[in-house]
C-alpha cells in the first residue's frame, strides 16, 4: 500500500505498529505534492523542510513514548489560519507577504497533538467563493474529472478548495478548513471526501482571518467520516481568547461514529426539494434515506418554512460583517501598501485596497457597506437578522421531532473552471443547501455518497442539533458505510 493511500486512522495505526515512520509518511506526501501541486495548485505554500523536521521530532517523541492524538500525521492547513513564522495570505494579494507572529488556536491544538504541517492550502480570497477561482494565487483544480470529458478542468468547490483537493488527491491525510456558508461541505462534496462544519462556537476562531464573524467556523476535511471525527476532536474546545467559543467538554467524536442510527428520527425538509434539481441528486437523496431506514432509522418529512430566504439572508449578513472585518487591511500596519509620493491617507487607502483586493472581495465589501448604510440598514441588515432568527427557530421546531436532518450537500456535481464565473448569483446558488446551518449555527457534515453520470462525486449532508456532532457523525458514518464510496480521482499521489 502506498503511504499516501492510508486513511488518517490507518496511518495512526501503522505509526503505532511501527510499520511506517512520520518522516516516511511526510516524505511520501511531499513527493506527491512536488508531482501534482504544479497542476492542482492546492497548496499556496509548501513547508517541506519544516514538515520533515516536525516529522523527525514526532518520530523521536514517539520513540520516547510521548504520543499525541495526531502524532506524526501530515496535514494541510487552509491559508486562512495564521501560522507563526509561515506566510498566511488568506488567498489575497493584500496579505501576500504577511507572516503572522502568532499561531491560530486550532492549528496550535493540532501541533500540540503531534500533527505535521505540510503547508498552507489554497482558498478563495478571504474565503469568499464557491469554486476556488478567486484566489490571488490562482485557481485550484479538482483532481476528479468527467469520464466522458477528461480534459475539462473542474473546480474543487470553495472556499476550502485547496484543502479538499489536497485531501482528495492524497496530498495530505486531512486538512483544516473553514465554513461560512458551505466552504467546507461544498468542496468536500465536489472532491468526494468528508468534511464537517461543527456547531458555531465548537472551534476557536482566534487566529483565523475573519470573513463573517457570526458565521465562520473551522472544521476538518478528510477522506472518511471517522478521520474527520479524529481531527475535530483535536481542533475543538473552549478558548478564552474567543468570546464566542463554547465552554463545553469535547466528546469522543470517533466513538460516536459507531453508535449506529437505530431508532433515530431523520428529518427530510420538504422545502429542499427544489424545482429543476438534477434527477441524480434527487435519486441519491432518496437512496441515502433508504440506507438510513435499512439501518434502523425512521425518516420523517419536516418543514423549514423560512429556508427559502436563507440564501438572500446570508448574502446580506455575510457581506455586512465582511465589509467591517476587512477594514483593517488598509496598508497602514501590515500587508500590502500602495502609495504615491505626496498623496494623502485617503489616497493610500484607495490605492492599497483597489490593488490588494480582487473583484469578488470588492463586490462583497460594497454590498456589505451598502446594506449597513444609513437609510438601508433597516430594510436589509435588520430584516436579515430577523429572518435569521426565524430560520433558527425553524430548526428548533424541527429538532423537537427529529434527531438529525439529511439533505443533498450541493445542487450539482463539480463544474468546469470557466463555468458560472460571470454570474455571481449562479455561483452563490452553490450554497443553497449549506447556508442554513451557518445561519442557525448548527453542525453540518458532508459525506461522499455516490457518483453522477459523469463519474463525479456527489455528497449528502447531515445537519444536527447544536453541539450534537455525535449524532451527526453517527448518521454520517451510517451513510458512508452503506454507500461504500470507493471511487478514486484520476489525479492522485501514488497513482
Amino acid at each position, binding site marked *: 500500500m502506498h503511504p499516501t493511500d492510508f486513511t488518517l486512522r490507518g496511518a495512526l495505526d501503522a505509526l503505532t505498529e511501527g510499520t511506517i515512520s512520520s518522516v516516511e509518511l511526510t516524505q511520501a506526501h511531499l513527493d506527491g505534492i512536488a508531482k501534482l501541486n504544479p497542476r492542482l495548485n492546492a497548496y499556496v505554500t509548501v513547508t517541506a523542510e519544516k514538515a520533515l523536521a516536525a516529522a523527525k521530532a514526532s518520530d523521536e517523541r514517539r520513540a520516547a513514548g510521548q504520543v499525541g492524538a495526531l502524532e506524526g500525521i501530515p496535514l494541510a492547513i487552509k491559508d486562512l489560519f495564521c501560522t507563526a513564522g509561515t506566510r498566511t495570505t488568506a488567498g489575497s494579494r493584500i496579505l501576500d507577504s504577511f507572516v503572522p507572529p502568532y499561531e*491560530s488556536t486550532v492549528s496550535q491544538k493540532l501541533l500540540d497533538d503531534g500533527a505535521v504541517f505540510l503547508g498552507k492550502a489554497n482558498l478563495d480570497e478571504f474565503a469568499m467563493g464557491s469554486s476556488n477561482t478567486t484566489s490571488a494565487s490562482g485557481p485550484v483544480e479538482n483532481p476528479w474529472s468527467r469520464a466522458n470529458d477528461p480534459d475539462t478542468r473542474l473546480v474543487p468547490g470553495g472556499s476550502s478548495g485547496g484543502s479538499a483537493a489536497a485531501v482528495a488527491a492524497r496530498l495530505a491525510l486531512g486538512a483544516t478548513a473553514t465554513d461560512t456558508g458551505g466552504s467546507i461541505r461544498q468542496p468536500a462534496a465536489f472532491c468526494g471526501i468528508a468534511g464537517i462544519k461543527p456547531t458555531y462556537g465548537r472551534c476557536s*476562531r482566534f487566529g483565523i482571518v475573519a470573513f463573517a464573524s457570526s458565521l465562520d467556523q473551522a472544521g476538518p476535511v478528510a477522506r472518511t467520516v471517522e478521520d474527520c471525527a479524529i481531527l475535530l476532536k483535536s481542533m475543538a474546545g473552549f478558548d478564552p481568547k474567543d468570546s464566542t467559543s463554547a465552554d463545553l467538554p469535547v466528546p469522543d467524536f470517533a466513538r460516536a461514529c459507531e453508535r449506529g442510527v437505530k431508532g433515530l428520527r431523520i428529518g427530510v425538509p420538504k422545502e429542499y426539494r427544489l424545482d429543476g434539481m438534477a434527477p441524480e441528486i434527487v435519486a441519491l437523496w432518496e437512496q441515502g434515506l433508504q440506507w438510513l431506514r435499512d439501518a434502523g432509522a425512521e425518516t420523517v418529512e419536516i418543514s423549514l418554512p423560512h429556508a427559502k430566504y436563507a440564501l438572500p439572508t446570508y448574502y446580506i449578513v455575510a457581506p455586512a460583517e465582511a465589509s467591517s472585518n476587512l*477594514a483593517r487591511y488598509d496598508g497602514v500596519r501590515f500587508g500590502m501598501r500602495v502609495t504615491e509620493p505626496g498623496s494623502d491617507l485617503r489616497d493610500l487607502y484607495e490605492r492599497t485596497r483597489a490593488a490588494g483586493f480582487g473583484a469578488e472581495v470588492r463586490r462583497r465589501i460594497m454590498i456589505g457597506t451598502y446594506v449597513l448604510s444609513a437609510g438601508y440598514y433597516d430594510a436589509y*441588515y435588520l430584516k436579515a437578522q430577523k429572518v435569521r432568527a426565524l430560520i433558527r427557530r425553524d430548526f428548533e421546531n424541527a429538532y423537537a421531532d427529529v434527531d438529525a436532518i439529511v439533505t443533498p450537500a450541493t445542487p450539482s456535481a463539480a463544474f468546469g473552471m470557466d463555468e458560472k464565473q460571470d454570474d455571481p448569483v449562479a455561483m452563490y446558488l452553490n450554497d443553497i443547501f449549506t447556508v442554513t446551518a451557518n445561519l442557525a449555527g448548527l453542525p453540518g457534515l458532508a459525506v461522499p455518497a455516490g457518483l453522477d453520470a459523469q463519474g463525479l462525486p456527489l455528497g449528502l449532508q447531515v445537519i444536527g442539533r447544536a453541539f450534537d456532532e455525535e449524532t451527526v457523525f453517527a448518521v454520517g458514518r451510517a451513510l458512508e458505510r452503506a454507500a461504500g464510496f470507493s471511487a478514486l480521482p484520476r489525479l492522485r499521489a501514488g497513482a
Partner: protein
Amino acid sequence: MTYTIEGRTGPWELVIGLEIHAQVISEAKLFSGAATAFGAEPNSQVSFIDAGFPGMLPVINAECVAQAVRTGLGLNAQVNLWSRFDRKNYFYADLPQGYQISQFAHPIIGEGAVEITLADGATKTIGITRLHLEQDAGKSLHDQHATKSFIDLNRSGVALMEIVSEPDMRSPEEAGAYLTKIRQILRYLGTCDGNMDEGSMRADVNVSVRKAGEGFRTRCEVKNVNSIRFVMQAVEAEARRQIEVWEAGEEVFQETRLFDTARGITRSMRSKEDAHDYRYFPEPDLPPLVLESDWVAALKAALPELPDARRARYTAMGLTAYDAHVLTLEKETAVFFETVAKGRDPKLAANWVTGDFFAALNRLKRDVADPPVTAENLGGLLDLIADKTLSGSLAKQVFEAMLETGKAPGEIVEERGLKQVTDTGAIEAVVAQVMAANADKVAEYRSGKDKLFGFFVGQTMKAMQGKGNPALVNEVVKAKLAG
C-alpha cells in the same frame, strides 16, 4: 433667575448638554491584556488585538465592566443587566481595526441624575441619558515629521466611559459645575482619575440658544474640550456665535466644531453633510454583555461613600453648608479633614482645614495629597488648643513652625516654650506689675473709663509674650482693676 446673553434682539437662553469621555481606571485595556499606563514609550503597550492584526478577537475585561457599573451606581443610574457592543465603522490611521467597538443601541447604563451646587448655594438636578463603554483610538502625531504622520497605539483599545447628559444645563456655570460634579463622583469611585490635562477626561459640548419660551433650536457640538474652564468658555463663545448668526437673519447648521483656546472662539470642523455614516451594527465577535443582579448588588454594597452623602454627614456634624461643600470637593480633602476631626471638635477641625491649612496649600503651592503638615499633626495641634495648652494666637504660631519644620506640634511647643500660662498666680503677678507701671490709667479706669480694660489685657499679654491664657488674663485683669 435664568441666565441669558443679551443680543441685539434681546435676551437669549442657553441650552447645554455634555458628552463626557472618561478613561476607565484599569490595569488592562477593554478588550486586550495590554497595559494602560500614561506616558509610556510610544507603541510599547500594544497587543496584536489593539493593532487590529488578522484573526485577532476582543475579549471583554471584567474589571472595566465593573468600573462602568460602579460609575452608573454612583450616578444614581439604571444598570442594564443586558447590554451589547456595536461596531462604529470609519477609516482612520489611528483606528487599527477600521471600527471602534462601542455600545450604540444598548448601553450598559441607562438614565440617572446628579445634583449640582452653584456658587450662590442653589442646587439643580441634571439628568444623565446614558453611559456606555467603548474603546479609545490611538493617537496621530502630525508634528513629528515634515511629510509623515506618526501613530502611537498605546491608547488604542483603552476603555472609555461616555457619559451623556440631558440638555439640562442653562449657563456656562452650570456646565462647569456639572463637569466638576461628574469628575468628583468618578474620582470618589476610583473609576476615572479625572486628569483632564493627560486626556483621561474630555468633553464634547452641545450648545444651542433660544428665546424664552421656545423649544430647542439647532445645536452644534464642540468636540474634545479638555478642561472645566475651557468648557465654560466654549459654551459662552459658541452661544455668542449662534446668537450672532440668528440675529443676522441666518440659520445655525448642525455641525461639529472645535474650541480654539488661544483665540477663545469655536471653529467649524465638519458639517452634517460631511458627517460619517458609521454603519453601526452589533459586534459579532462579542456575545451580549449579561450581568448577574447579585454581582451588581455586591458592587453596590462595596461602593465608597459619595460626595453628596459625605456632605450631608458633615452638615449633620454641625459644619456649615459651605464648609461641607468645600471639604468634599476632593476625596483627598475629605479624608484629610476626617483624620484631623477624628475624636475632636468637627467645627474647629473644619475651621483649621479650610482656613490656615488651605491658605498654606495656596501659599506653598502644595496639594492635599502632598500636604506640608500631616493630618495627624494638625489634629495634635487641635488637641493642644482643646486642653488649653495653646491659645488661638499661639496655635497659629505653632502651625507656622510646623509648616517650616514639619515637626509635631508638641515638639515645637517644648522647644520654643510656647506653652500657654494658665497659672493664675503667675498671671496675677504680671497684672500687678502692669497696674503698678500704669497707676494713672488705673485711676482713669476706676473713675469710669471702661475702655481702658483692653489696654490692661494687651499689656499683660505683651508682658507674657502672648503665652497667657486669654480667658484667665481677662478674668484676673477684671478682678484686680475692680480692686
